[in-house]
């Protein structure tokens, strides 16, 4: 276990360093001068030079990289060129939208998908299986932004139950905040659930065919008991893997849904920051997201150990 933690930590540091270098170099060679973007078509050589100096863009690249990394090591994540506020505050505020949204979507998706997948596997080839998997097929095919718009039209424009977008803010109460996250979470969760349900079904089908399930049935367990006690637990490893991947995606890959619902989340922040060449925001976010993906993967690994004790013994 200790060795696992240690290798994971080393991987974390190495990945973060690599990510920071890659993102810095890519942004540096990318055409587009942040100062020129601020000054626009009225820019003159003198104002441009003054602004570049003010923003520190006239320093050599390696020095800017060291200043940035050094700042982070001291807990200073830099100041956004667009908003003029510390990037740490900016990211924290956005994470308060994106993180709950991702958690809500993954919970909804898991609660829907696992029963669906298990039920379909248990009734393989029957009407229930066919209808559930057809529904999942539609779910995979439906783009989430379109689903989001349908939800807005139904619940906001038609029924006027929920606002058509925007984020109420946690200071308006948990109810209001969750209310503005519910539709986008649903729009994200349904297509994810469709994928997860298919994965669950095939994983359970595979374990149902294993010798230990036949043995369980032979020693007199009912079909139901064999399913839940033996087939499902052994089928969870691929399911957990997919959940981990989906969660990593949900942290910042939801820019389209954030746009449709006008949510101030991390996805839109990074998208805007790239378009506006708000370099330090992009750099910080890429490093943080790389870090969070590693942490999520680590959590998934821990889940494997818990689900399959053989792995722990293999380690020791």
């Amino acid at each position, binding site marked *: 276990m200790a060795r696992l933690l240690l290798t994971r930590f080393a991987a974390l540091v190495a990945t973060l360093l690599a990510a920071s270098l890659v993102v810095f170099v890519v942004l540096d060679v990318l055409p587009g001068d942040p100062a020129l973007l601020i000054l626009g*078509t009225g820019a003159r050589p003198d104002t441009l030079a*003054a602004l570049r100096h003010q923003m520190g863009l006239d320093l050599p690249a390696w020095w800017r990289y060291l200043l940035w990394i050094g700042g982070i090591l001291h807990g200073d994540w830099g100041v956004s060129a667009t908003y003029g506020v510390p990037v740490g505050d900016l990211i924290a505020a956005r994470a308060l939208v994106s993180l709950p949204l991702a958690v809500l979507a993954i919970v909804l998706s898991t609660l829907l998908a696992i029963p669906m997948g298990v039920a379909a596997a248990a009734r393989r080839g029957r009407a229930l299986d066919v209808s559930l998997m057809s529904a999942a097929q539609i779910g995979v095919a439906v783009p989430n932004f379109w689903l989001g718009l349908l939800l*807005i039209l139904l619940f906001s424009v038609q029924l006027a139950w929920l606002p058509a977008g925007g984020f109420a803010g946690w200071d308006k109460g948990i109810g209001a905040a969750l209310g503005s996250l519910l539709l986008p979470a649903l729009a994200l969760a349904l297509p994810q659930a469709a994928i997860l349900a298919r994965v669950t079904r095939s994983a359970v089908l595979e374990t149902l065919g294993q010798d230990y399930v036949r043995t369980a049935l032979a020693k007199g367990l009912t079909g139901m008991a064999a399913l839940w006690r033996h087939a499902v637990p052994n089928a969870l490893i691929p399911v957990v893997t997919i959940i981990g991947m989906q969660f990593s995606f949900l942290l910042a890959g939801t820019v389209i849904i954030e746009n449709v619902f006008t949510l101030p989340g991390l996805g839109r922040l990074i998208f805007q920051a790239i378009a506006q060449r708000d370099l330090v925001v992009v750099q910080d976010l890429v490093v943080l997201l790389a870090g969070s993906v590693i942490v999520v993967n680590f959590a998934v690994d821990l889940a494997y150990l818990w689900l399959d004790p053989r792995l722990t013994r293999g380690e020791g």
Partner: protein
Amino acid sequence: MGRLIVCTLAASLALPFAAGRAAAKDTLTLGMVLEPPGLDPTAGAAAAIREVTYANIYEGLVRIDAQGKVRPALAASWTISPDGLAYTFHLHSGVRFHDGAPFDCSVVKFSYERALSPDSTNAQKGLFEPIAAVACPDATTAVVTLKRPTASFLFDMGWGDAVMLSPASIASDRTNPVGTGPFRFVRWVKGDRVELERFSGYWGQAPKLARVTFRFISDPSAAAAAVMAGDLDAFPNFPAPEVLDRLKADPRFSVVVGTTEGKTILALNNARKPFDDVRVRRALAMAIDRQGLIEGAMSGYGTPIGAHYVPTDPGYIDLVSKYPYNPEAAKKLLAEAGVKPGTTIEIKLPPPVYARRGGELIAAYLEQVGLKADLVPVEWAQWLEGPFRNGDYAATIISHTEPRDLDIFAREKYYFNYKSEAYRSLFAQYQAATDPTKQTELVGALQRQLADDEPVVFLFALAKVGVWNAKLRGMWINSPIPANDVTGVSWAE
């Protein structure tokens, strides 16, 4: 994809509406497509900065009104010396900034000198360039002397870039703007909205609205949904023209089509072959059907232009028919200039709809006269660095939104590489003219010269399509300057 969404949305509008939420009488929630990058118009060019702050938070000595006229603001009146070199502004007395600091001539001196200083990062430093000195004979009199007569000076001082900031606040105005306007800044929820409230210490007439919220919604279909759901009272620059017919049919909304200063052009690099030949540029102007372009790319919203000037500007002359749509004549002219059929022209397209959709249509028009268009989509940042700063382009579609910017064709170095001594000399005469009739005459001559030389293909002026609650009064119809001035907005009983 965006189009598909909007169509879906439009189709579903056939269903009956839910009742919109009742709006309180003295609050206003306004939608904008882009979030401003900071709230200091003296430190950035983005129109969105002005669309929140102009006239609402910040004021200048003079201001531009809804009709594009220069009106008194912090200066109650002014006189101009006969030689056009000295402007004496008589300032309102007893004016205070939102932070309590007094406004007087020293602030004027500070602001203009700051804009002119070597480390100035004012995006329109050029506007201040004619200023020689600012003197303060007393606290409520500011005397601005110019290096040379400048016909556009008063209008220029009405731009958002020339507003007065509380001197103590300049370091923080980007996040916490402090002006003299009738509204004061409350808060900015980044990525979502900016909130303003009525400033009780305002020197002038108090606005009717007590609270104003600007919400930022970039997705066209989300914008449409927010308007229809009643989450917004107004969307002054509505981004989803496809749903407008539905909104027009709905008595809850006013749909008002106005004009902007956005002169959309097919810019041509005059330093590159074949665009160094005026015949080629004229041929391109004849190859493109402006009205067809407006129908196809802008859902019919827009006004054809024949020079770098829009119909609402003073001294406008209609030159649209100078190069009527005529593919045959265009072909002949191209052949005369030695441009072989099948020649490929690379057109760089920045992100806005007018460029991306417009580019596809222009490619089709060029094909009709035997040319091939190679469409290259670019990001905004790439456009500024490539075509705009480095002149690295052959052709590009762009809208110049600065008001009355005939000067860009007179500049020594500008990305069109248009070098006409005739135009420059006319422009110098125009700026030096102190007599209004003479000015108007010269503005006409400038437009004619541009249409003659056709350094770029002048296409159309962008429309301002506004959607707002039918009970709302006092919204700007046109956009003579980037602004959402809500100081005169109120709710009908």
